């Protein structure tokens, strides 16, 4: 492949990427407060791993409890606290910060600015999120990540205000992160026709971040105010004149765009690394641009599909939400079609086939198909009012999307960036163990959840009856969960071992080699 083509802005600008050991010689001051984009990204990525370990440990604990019917060792309150923290830590602490941090690193590289604009805001966003996470762990709320009023006002936990404050802090942190992404996307010199797709993603999702977090901040404030009874005015507490409907609409005005906040940056990672591995541009530039814009526009008005079997979502409004929800399918189909066509339109180099990030990318596309196709069913009120609403079918859907796609794509990005951060290559064998344990474990876990949901297994229970099929499905999910946990251990060992002892990389770590047998000398380091 000609070098000129690889330097095209739509191709990820190879010229700006250099493997480098950033880790040695890092001072504590640099780790904590440096505004260099590489340091901010490294810190964000590493913190996300800690959050993943934390949220994963919670999951392993309550998964063990759920493997068998009846109560083994976890009480209701502890279970619900672990469940709430699992959801909040994974989404707000792990997934969103991880994909955003990867964007912080990739954007300046791709746009050639070589510095993160408004880096101070990124720094503030990071530290505010840390405060929120600490508050959550101390306050131990048990109101699930959706914090439905008035239940979340009456949990009997005296520290519950920490959960409400944490919601406000998450909103502030996400606003700042969105502003940084948006500002850096504007730094693109390419104009409308030559802006890299990652910048399109950052621009649209940054805007969506900045708009959608206002309802979240208001939810946090309203809950806090209602709980503390500061004023005569109650926003959400119906016993004091507040409105539960108001809560639902405000919360899901944030809550639906929120599910795209980790989704779109993960898509952007595909558009950045796929051309690098294939050695050719994407199948279509404009298809990607249109899909990003459509997704951002379509995300806002469809929140009510999260609570549609409730009486206010009815009649023509019900149909409006239903149709728009199904239409949001289209931008996702445009993306997936674009990726599959890019893979299909030419040979896949041997070097790509054996690269761990490429493998993660291909399988995350499989998971977006697996989880995304059910969205067509979920959007419809009739099946939704049967077995879908708040049964395990929904966790199956969003674990496929959040973990199977976004999470795995973020890990593809991490493996891709590994040589650029450490100057060394990861260990291939351990990478393969991680890869296969995750694919098999995730498939078992997600399929088990789907089957449990089809059998009307309710969400958020620590104890369940021995109804035919329920216990088997739960056991399968637990086994899948253990496999995912084991895979993560392989990743952690790989991370630390390879950063110290991995093969050194000085040149391009991802050369495009079509026939490795013919040119073994040019094989990439591993």
């Amino acid at each position, binding site marked *: 492949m000609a070098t000129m083509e690889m330097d095209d802005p739509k191709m990820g600008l190879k010229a700006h990427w250099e493997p480098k050991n950033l880790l040695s010689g890092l001072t504590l001051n640099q780790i904590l407060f440096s505004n260099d984009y590489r340091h901010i990204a490294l810190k964000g990525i590493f913190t996300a791993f800690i959050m993943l370990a934390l949220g994963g440990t919670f999951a392993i604990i309550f998964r063990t409890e759920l493997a068998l019917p009846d109560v083994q060792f976890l009480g*209701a309150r502890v279970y619900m606290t672990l469940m709430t923290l699992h959801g909040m830590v994974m989404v707000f602490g792990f997934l969103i910060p991880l994909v955003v941090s990867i964007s912080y690193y990739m954007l300046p590289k791709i746009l050639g600015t070589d510095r993160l604009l408004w880096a101070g805001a990124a720094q503030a966003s990071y530290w505010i999120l840390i405060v929120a996470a600490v508050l959550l762990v101390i306050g131990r709320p048990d109101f699930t990540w959706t914090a*439905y009023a008035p239940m979340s006002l009456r949990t009997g936990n005296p520290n519950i205000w920490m959960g409400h404050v944490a919601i406000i802090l998450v909103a502030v942190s996400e606003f700042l992160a969105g502003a940084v992404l948006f500002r850096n996307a504007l730094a693109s010199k390419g104009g409308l026709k030559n802006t890299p797709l990652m910048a399109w993603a950052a621009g649209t999702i940054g805007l969506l971040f900045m708009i959608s977090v206002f309802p979240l901040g208001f939810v946090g404030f309203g809950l806090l105010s209602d709980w503390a009874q500061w004023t005569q005015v109650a926003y959400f507490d119906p016993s004091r004149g507040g409105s539960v409907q108001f809560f639902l609409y405000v919360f899901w005005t944030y809550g639906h765009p929120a599910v795209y906040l980790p989704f779109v940056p993960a898509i952007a990672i595909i558009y950045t690394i796929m051309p690098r591995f294939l050695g050719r541009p994407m199948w279509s530039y404009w298809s990607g641009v249109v899909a990003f814009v459509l997704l951002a526009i379509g995300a806002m008005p469809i929140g009510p599909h999260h609570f549609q079997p409730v009486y206010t979502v009815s009649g023509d409004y019900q149909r409006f939400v239903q149709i728009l929800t199904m239409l949001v399918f289209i931008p996702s189909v445009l993306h997936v079609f674009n990726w599959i*066509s890019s893979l299909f339109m030419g040979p896949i180099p041997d070097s790509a086939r054996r690269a761990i990030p490429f493998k993660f990318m291909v399988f995350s596309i499989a998971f977006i198909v697996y989880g995304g196709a059910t969205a*067509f069913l979920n959007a419809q*009120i009739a099946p939704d009012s049967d077995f879908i609403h708040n049964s395990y079918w929904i966790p199956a859907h969003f674990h496929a999307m959040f973990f199977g796609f976004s999470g795995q794509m973020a890990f593809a990005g991490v493996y891709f960036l590994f040589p650029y951060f450490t100057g060394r290559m990861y260990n291939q064998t351990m990478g393969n163990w991680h890869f296969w344990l995750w694919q098999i474990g995730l498939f078992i876990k997600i399929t088990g959840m789907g089957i449990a949901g089809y059998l009307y297994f309710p969400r*958020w229970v620590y104890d369940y*009856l021995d109804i035919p099929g329920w216990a088997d499905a739960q056991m399968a999910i637990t086994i899948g969960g253990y496999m995912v946990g084991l895979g993560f251990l392989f990743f952690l060992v790989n991370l630390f071992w390879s950063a110290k002892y991995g093969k050194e990389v000085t040149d391009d770590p991802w050369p495009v080699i079509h026939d490795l047998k013919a040119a073994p000398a040019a094989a990439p380091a591993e």
Partner: protein
Amino acid sequence: MENALGIWGPQAIMMAITASFTVLGMVMLLAAMMMKRRWKPSYAVEFAFIGIMLALVWYGDFTSTKTYAAYQADLNAEEKTVSGNYDGLGEEAFDRVVTVVAFQWGFGFINEEDEISRNALVVKPGEKVLLKVVSNDVIHGLNIPVAQITAEIDPDDKRELWIRAPDAPGKYLIQCVNYCGVGHAQMKAWLVVDAGEEETDGENT
């Protein structure tokens, strides 16, 4: 089971469409990785895809709305919505009318004689039962797997659902599916189908 939201019928078609889409995506991905012959797909293929999607959106909305409207038609001929200001019209179409109180944490069932049963809804086989559901504290969910119906109930709000009781006598699960506080997992009740004295082969459960 005679129920407009039933698994068979429109819903089976929707699930088949979902499954076919999953399989199609997987086959395309597999072909992109494995196939020897390769070419650049034209934009026409993508537009054809969007066309199919738009048709499916239309079909999904049409079928779902029709199914749900048929279910609601029995509830309130005037309003055409599941709930709101149910005025009692059309109650004679049902064999039994029960008020369901969802609370933290359990279900209370009040029959037409104002008798309250905690956690057992007793009906006769095959009866058409109208449930008027209310909640006084927090948001609850009501799910009756055997009747294939789920609804979410907000405080200070009244909803109507109807079910056709199963023909076989026995105990069937009623459960809350919306997290409503620490006792959520215990928020269950039973739909007891009791053949009673009228049926000679009846059996109490």
